[in-house]
């Protein structure tokens, strides 16, 4: 691939990011101007100032995604071991594909009744449980290829030497799985971070994550705040990518 093609491709990739950043810094954008007539940092100051509820949305999103990713990663790591070593492993694993039969938003629509009965409708806990239904099976599928005979032998060695199951996890399995656990955690964090339909339906708009804010601002035709909320949504995944790249380089 020629240098020009590479630069053109990178330019194409960066265009949406630059475009959203431009809108988040704009104030007036009458047709047919290509760029906003006024530029200002005032939209970004809203996040720091806490007005418009954007700061609150950032907090809710971070808290929700961290909780979902932590719970799903740890539960799926533990459960996947019991699935992976089962003689009918493939049959068990096919259950993990069940949630993907539904679109998340349709799943939420069909489960609304149960969330109302359980008193979880319109609550942070309800959204968290609903997101577990899509992230946990993903985690199980992710870890299913991690378990192998070598790990099983290491685990048995710990027990032969008098160690307990908890010690086998703490001293051997978790340290060995550190990389996989981190990768799974980041992926589940992103699934939760990007989620809109299910969060909106089960949260009834009362759990104001950033994705809900984007839609709210678009509905209000406030494109500048919608662009700002979009930038806030994109920032953590980009930071994670950069971090991943930095770690890979350091290890390389």
């Amino acid at each position, binding site marked *: 691939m020629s240098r020009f093609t590479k630069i053109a491709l990178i330019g194409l990739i960066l265009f949406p990011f630059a475009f959203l950043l431009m809108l988040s810094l704009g104030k007036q954008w009458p047709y047919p101007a290509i760029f906003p007539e006024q530029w200002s940092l005032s939209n970004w100051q809203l996040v720091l100032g806490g007005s418009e509820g954007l700061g609150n949305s950032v907090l809710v999103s971070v808290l929700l995604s961290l909780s979902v990713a932590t719970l799903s990663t740890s539960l799926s790591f533990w*459960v996947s071991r019991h699935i992976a070593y089962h003689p009918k492993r493939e049959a068990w694993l096919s259950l993990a594909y069940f949630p993907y039969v539904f679109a998340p938003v349709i799943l939420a629509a069909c489960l609304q009744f149960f969330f109302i009965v359980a008193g979880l409708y319109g609550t942070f806990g309800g959204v968290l449980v609903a997101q577990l239904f899509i992230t946990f099976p993903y985690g199980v599928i992710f870890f299913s290829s991690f378990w192998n005979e070598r790990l099983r032998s290491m685990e048995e060695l710990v027990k032969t030497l008098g160690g307990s199951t908890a010690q086998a996890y703490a001293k051997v399995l978790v340290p060995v799985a550190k990389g996989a656990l981190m990768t799974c955690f980041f992926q589940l964090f992103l699934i939760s971070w990007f989620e809109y339909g299910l969060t909106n339906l089960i949260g009834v708009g009362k759990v104001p994550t950033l*994705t809900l804010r984007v839609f709210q601002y678009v509905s209000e035709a406030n494109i500048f705040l919608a662009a700002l909320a979009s930038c806030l949504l994109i920032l953590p995944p980009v930071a994670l990518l950069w971090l991943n790249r930095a770690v890979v380089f350091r290890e390389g």
Partner: protein
Amino acid sequence: MQQRWAAYGGRSLFVLLSAVPIVAGVSYALLYSLGLTGVLSEGFTLAHWQEVLGDAAFWRTLGFSLYVAAVSIGVALGLSLALVLRSPQAFTKGALSFFIYLPLSIPAIVMAFFIFQWLGKGGWLSRLSHQLGLIGALEQFPDWVNDNYGIGIIVAHVIMATPFFTIFFANLYQNERLGEYLHLAATLGAKRRQRIFRVAVPVLLRRGLATVFLYFMFVMGSYEIPLLVGSQSVQMVSIRTIQRLQRYNLGDIPEAYAISVAYTVMVVVLLVGLLWYNRKQMGRA
């Protein structure tokens, strides 16, 4: 003994979090659509199913979802295969190997917003066309957003899927040692066209079939993108279902659930077909 209980506990939790919600959701939707539960339930009836299955709009919705998924995935596959086969190393080494991941950090709702502001009548491309003298007024810009052909939806999905498949195929190319196969094919006298269409594309598509299929399902069931850039007259399945559920007319709810069940059955049939095909291929291998 303790280990056995832990294994039972682990597997029970697995069933509870992955299968139970789906079985409960489908059962509830089925019962509601058959008039056996819900606010207006009056006992068993097939009326809602007859209404849905006899409604041309429902079939149009299913057809439109299939069409959007097929065109989006088709275009994305074509572009990503072309990029990877043109320069396989470019996406595993160097600057592009980092930048190609960036579009994956854009959530669907943000992509929909971007498409709206980029391709819409008052969007950036329309403004650029006006400045270049290609159009004289905003109305002259074509309907690429909220249109009946789903152009905005398709473009959004293509932008999201192309980098994903490019990364996927670039890694597959390396792991499957496709370069060596192509070199062998060239040694045996295969021309460039034959090497691409008889060796590279079949190997990559066959190995990536399950992933392509799952992405196809993801596009078919997508919600945020058609919600912002889709048309009101031709809707995708998720939009039609949720709109019917959220209307003030309670009589629409059983139909919404009937659509959910019908869509689920369709996806299950496709999924079973894929598993059957995969098993057959593995048997051959």
